[in-house]
């Protein structure tokens, strides 16, 4: 084990993935793809947790990742149900056309 990957490499990869997710939320208009970009951000944060858990020799990070995954699963179920309900009303998955709350 001479040349191991340092913690900063994992953190930079995680930051890059998170930023790609933010970019997806900002520039895409399809509500499903925006949802996928949010999943991408959740995964980037999970990677940070696991990397710190490894380098601080603690298991707590991995437990938190389990909870994040459970909450992500719940979020996906409810979010997709909302998207289906929206699509029934609007016949569209474009966030620009979903502006009922816009006054």
């Amino acid at each position, binding site marked *: *084990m001479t*040349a*191991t*990957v340092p913690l*900063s*490499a*994992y953190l*930079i*990869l995680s*930051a*890059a*993935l*998170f*930023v*790609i*997710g*933010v*970019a*997806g939320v*900002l*520039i*895409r*208009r*399809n509500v*499903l*793809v925006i949802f*996928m*970009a949010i*999943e*991408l951000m959740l*995964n980037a944060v999970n*990677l940070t947790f*696991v*990397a710190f*858990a*490894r380098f*601080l*020799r*603690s*298991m707590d990070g*991995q*437990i938190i*990742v*389990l*909870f994040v*995954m*459970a*909450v*992500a*699963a*719940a979020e996906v*179920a*409810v979010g997709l*149900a*909302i*998207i*289906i*309900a929206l*699509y*029934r009303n609007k016949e569209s998955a474009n966030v620009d056309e979903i502006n009922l709350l816009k006054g």
Partner: protein
Amino acid sequence: MEWLMFVPLAAMALITATLVIVLRNPVYCALSLVGTFFALSGIYLLLQAQFIAVIQVIVYAGAIMVLFLFVVMLLDLGHERPLWLQRDRPRLLIGVGAVVLLLLELVIPVGSWTARVPQGSSTSELMGGVGNTQLVGRLLFTEFLVPFEITSVILLIAIIGAMVLARR
């Protein structure tokens, strides 16, 4: 040796993640997101988090992406206009600018991060002895028992909420 595994996996994660936000067809987006999940699962293996890696494949690549694909097929989404042909170029530019700023803000502190933090007791020798899954399970049912139970309540509420919302 570790770099030999890390670099291809990281490259795969970054490329597939970029494809998710660039491709126009939502089905292709979902499939490249599955690629990202598999690459991350490999990275979790590198980080000696075997249980998390397996759960990543089963829960994310298995359950969540199947849900996504079902909804994509259910909704019959048309093709989105390509990014470079979208009407409002200012918003695109503002989005890219904000993203570059955020990336710098996240990456620059990593280089100068030298804080000394106390280290826990879960060494790789311990993990080789009892195994990662057993360590996770032991913590989950002792120290983190209350959050674990709350998670089950959250999942139950999500099931009920999804049924209520998606019902005609």
